[in-house]
């Protein structure tokens, strides 16, 4: 039998190249740029109208003497990088930005009736860092699979997607996420079971919601981008904003719920001050009884330890977690 290597090479040489490949690449780039411009324009206009309408509504109800009650629900379309709150925006943006030599710490604990899966990551903006994994589920390797562990040099941290081009300005980010989620985007989302309304050609509210929530689980989605993602997520059609929630660890939060067909509900809880993810839980409308995951986030100067004190962006979980 001829050597596999030779036969593979011969087979690949039988394939003709694509016709006019560079011209098609140019056309694809132009299409993408046009789409980006259109989407960004539409989203910016929608947000501007929303901001104006919301402001007028608040002023008409309060006589213009009070601010927006819920920090998470304040519109940030006109804010700068990472702003989540009115007058404290720049202070918060500074707190959420990852500096040189700093690591974004994320600890996720997935709690199931059979045991817990704990993932810790320390991510630096140069894509270096460390990951740790612990699993107490019986036969975890088969049930869950091996988690990423070890230290990684610049560029080597294992991640699911490239988020480096995403803006921390919610108005810009909204357009980018729509483009990214579309069929020709960097991260096209598959057809959804509960699609909801179509936002742009090929992008339903369900696929947009899914793309957004996937980013929240990624260890390379830095805190300032996370705050902006929250602001965009709550504007997805169909998403219910909950002003006051308590996550499974007993932490106070604000919640976002997306209603899936068949009564399935998935709720994402966020810290009301930093807009960082606290918990994800799912179940049916009558109660969350099917397991959950909780998150502890912070910014540290070393991969050797978890955050302490002011380094936490979410309250640290100190007590035992309830078994679902």
């Amino acid at each position, binding site marked *: *039998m001829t050597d596999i290597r030779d036969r593979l090479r011969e087979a690949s040489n039988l394939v003709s190249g694509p016709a006019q490949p560079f011209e098609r690449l140019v056309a694809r780039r132009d299409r993408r740029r046009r789409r980006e411009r259109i989407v960004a324009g539409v989203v910016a206009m929608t947000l501007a109208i929303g901001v104006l309408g919301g402001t007028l509504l608040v002023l008409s109800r309060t006589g213009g003497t009070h601010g927006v009650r819920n920090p998470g629900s304040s519109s940030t379309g006109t804010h700068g990088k990472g702003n989540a709150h009115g007058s404290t925006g720049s202070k918060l943006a500074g707190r959420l930005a990852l500096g040189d030599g700093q690591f974004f710490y994320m600890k996720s604990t997935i709690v199931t009736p059979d045991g817990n899966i704990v993932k810790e990551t320390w991510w630096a903006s140069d894509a270096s860092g460390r990951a740790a994994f612990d699993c107490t589920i019986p036969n975890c390797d088969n049930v869950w*699979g091996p988690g990423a562990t070890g230290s990684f040099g610049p560029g080597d941290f294992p991640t699911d997607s490239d988020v480096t081009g995403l803006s921390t300005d919610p108005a810009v980010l909204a357009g980018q996420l729509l483009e990214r989620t579309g069929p020709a985007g960097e991260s096209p989302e598959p057809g959804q079971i509960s699609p909801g309304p179509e936002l742009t050609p090929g992008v339903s509210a369900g696929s947009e919601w899914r793309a957004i929530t996937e980013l929240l689980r990624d260890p390379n989605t830095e805190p300032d981008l996370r705050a902006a993602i929250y602001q965009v997520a709550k504007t997805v059609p169909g998403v219910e904003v909950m002003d006051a929630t308590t996550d499974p660890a007993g932490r106070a939060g604000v919640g976002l719920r997306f209603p899936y067909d068949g009564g399935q509900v998935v709720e994402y809880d966020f810290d009301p001050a930093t807009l960082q993810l606290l918990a994800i839980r799912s179940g049916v409308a009558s109660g969350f009884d099917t397991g959950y995951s909780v998150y502890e986030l912070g910014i540290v100067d070393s991969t050797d330890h978890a955050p302490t004190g002011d380094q936490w962006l979410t309250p640290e979980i100190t007590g035992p977690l309830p078994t679902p």
Partner: protein
Amino acid sequence: MARMDDLRTATTVTEPDQAPGPGKVPVDFESFFLAHHLRLFRALWLMTRNRHEAEEVMQDAFLRVWERWDRVATLPDPEGYLYRTAMNAFRSRARRAAVAVRKAVGQLPADDELAAVESREAVVRALAPLPPRQRAAIVLTDVLDMSSEEAAKALGIKAVTVRVLAARARSTLKRGMGERDD
């Protein structure tokens, strides 16, 4: 248990190296494209087994490189960057799912050329049942002649994993071709 999409494992997609190469003379993007597109396309064709899908992945990879060309051109190994980007695209879970949907509803045209090549080369038929990672590993090492370290970098996994994946792929290919040759 919670929904599967809430409880996913991390995959190992790695961003290409960012460090610029000192004193590297940039070439223009079109020349870079023309020099590398056919080789990449053929490799992707073997991995995806569909020329339309292969071209999409190739174009996505080149587009991303083009958008960052001022930086990529100065890297020590722009070709390595290209292959890492292409492998990221190839292995993207979301992209694979989207392609599956398009195939299911008939939006992705069938590859007529594949049948012709398959009839001449049993090895291409034997590639079909391989998992995507094994297919990628054997194409990178055996067709593109990458070392396991280079392939590992492109795939964002360890070199030893590449060797294991490629060995498994070879073994399956031999078995598959043997069965068909009999």
